[in-house]
């Protein structure tokens, strides 16, 4: 069924949160509209979670407004969050309830029709691979299992907007990969996804745009490609060899290959190459090294472009 409905949006208007003399979020102005995935990045204590909490009524702003689909979360919470799925920090569920009961509770609160509630709960539980545990009490679950149920809760009402605070926290590698796949699938279903994360590779993999915040202030908001083009510098690969390599040979690497800006020896059998250019340049350097007779056992990027950009923009961790 198709209908004309408003483009999902989230907007911070002069959003500020102060704790005494400490300003956690300072005059944040950010408008995101459309169906896409935005990575919200920043160091610890930069104000990411505080911002997300102001968008979900977990904390009150000192001033300014948090709007979802044009509705102020703090003056009309029920309307603002009606089409929003949230996962903030690692929520706990009442321990004696089962996932089926806890999710049915949220489904009822959100007004899912009685006839579709049970089916929808089973669907989202299956989506997070927790089918076998649907009727077991949550009190016995691990942190990762609870996180999966909370992700299921966020997806329950098939929301237009998803606000996720480090959604893969507490999950094992397979769980992280599955959640990333879910987010990628949701992107294809016309959703606006705003997620904070410390895992830059994750953001690079699933997000279309990034917003960076530092000391409570927005540092930048742009598409991922623009950010990496503007701020990422030369690429770095780390090379490991089977046999030790002579310093002289390493000097040769710098002069023989075009695009190589520097070579740094890490040990007898390992060195780092700094180069400009994309994946083609990276591949041709590898071919060249092998032509020089080196037996390469490992060849991997030392940092991603997004990481490079992040490190240039965010100068301190606190």
């Amino acid at each position, binding site marked *: *069924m*198709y*209908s*004309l*409905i*408003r*483009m999902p949006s989230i907007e911070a208007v002069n959003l500020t949160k102060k*704790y005494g003399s400490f300003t956690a979020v300072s005059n944040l102005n950010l408008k995101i509209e459309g*169906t896409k995935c935005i990575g919200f990045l920043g160091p610890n204590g930069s104000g990411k979670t505080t911002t997300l*909490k102001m968008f*979900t*009524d*977990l*904390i*009150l702003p000192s001033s300014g407004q948090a709007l979802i689909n044009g509705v102020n979360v703090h003056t009309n*919470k*029920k*309307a*603002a*969050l*009606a*089409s*929003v799925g*949230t996962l*903030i*920090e*690692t*929520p*706990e*569920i*009442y*321990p*004696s*309830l089962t996932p089926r*009961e*806890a999710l049915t*509770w*949220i489904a*009822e*609160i*959100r*007004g*899912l*029709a009685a006839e*579709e509630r049970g089916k*929808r709960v089973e669907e989202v539980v299956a989506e997070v691979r927790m089918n076998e545990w649907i009727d077991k009490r949550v009190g016995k679950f691990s942190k990762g299992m609870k996180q999966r149920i*909370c992700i299921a*809760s966020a997806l329950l*009402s*098939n*929301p*237009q907007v998803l*606000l996720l605070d480090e959604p893969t926290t507490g999950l094992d590698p397979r769980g992280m990969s599955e959640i990333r796949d879910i987010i990628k699938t949701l992107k294809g*279903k*016309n959703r606006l996804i705003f997620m904070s994360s410390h895992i830059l590779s994750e953001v690079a993999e699933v997000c279309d745009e990034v917003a960076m915040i530092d000391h409570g202030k927005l540092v930048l908001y742009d598409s991922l490609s623009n950010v990496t083009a503007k701020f990422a510098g030369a690429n770095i690969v780390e090379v490991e060899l089977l046999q030790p390599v002579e310093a002289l040979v390493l000097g040769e690497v710098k002069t023989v290959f075009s695009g190589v800006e520097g070579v740094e020896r890490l040990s007898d059998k390992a060195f780092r190459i700094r180069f400009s250019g994309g994946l083609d340049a990276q591949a041709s350097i590898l071919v060249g090294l092998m032509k020089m007779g080196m037996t390469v056992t490992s060849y991997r990027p030392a940092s991603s472009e997004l990481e490079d950009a992040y490190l240039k923009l965010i100068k301190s961790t606190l």
Partner: protein
Amino acid sequence: MIKMEQNNSQNTVPSSLAQILITAKYTLMDYLRSRRFYILLSITLIIGIVLTSLVGYYHPDIFFQASSLLSPKNPSLPFYTVWWGQTATFIVILSGIFFGGDAISSEFQNKTGYFTVPNPVRRSSIYFGKWLSAFAAASVILGVFTAITIGNGLFYFGAQGFPFEMVESILFCWLYLAAVLGLTFLFSALFKSNSMSILVTAILFLFVFNIVQLFVSFLAHVEPWFILTYGAGIIGNVLGNLIPSGIGGISMFTPSIAEGLGIMAAYFLITTALGLLLFERKEFT
């Protein structure tokens, strides 16, 4: 405006009243499965069994002989006064501590609030839903004790001996439960720590109210109309004037029925309003 696949997020969010009842249903489910519910039920059953055994075996005079303080119109009044009047208020206080002591603080400390609050539901709906479920869970406990009391009363005095005053006392007891839960929810909303909230509530009901009542009435000769436990004195007093007001039975003043009802209703309304206000303003930091 764009053309999009319509999704289920177009669901109509229920009214706040409906959300209160939904929240109450699921939090009651949690209460009724909790260890603390079974502990309190066990305590209540033990009290009931001990009283039943002692009264059945020893037939203490205080349960069966009308004193000069008692209304002579119904011979069963001493029984109900001693059995119910002295114990029911204690069970109400225990229920308040068990079910209300950390009802709101646990949403912060245990992080269950992160699961419920970021949904299209007012905080007041969560607060009242939790309050209703605590009231219902405590009512089960109080109901069990009421049934044991009435069962024993009917055994000794028959249905004809059941005093109307006992119905009044039971209703007063439930109003007292509402007031106690109002106050425990207020303390629970005040503190973020579960243990602090429970401890303060327990100390207040088991010691502070009685001590203040003692000092105010005996030393200052002022009627302690502002103390909840003083108002709850009508639960025993309505059965006969055997029980002085206050848990410890230490007062030179006795509340009238109207005063007692007024004190309990005021505590319920004021503490519930203040507790809700605190919960509305409290932040999940």
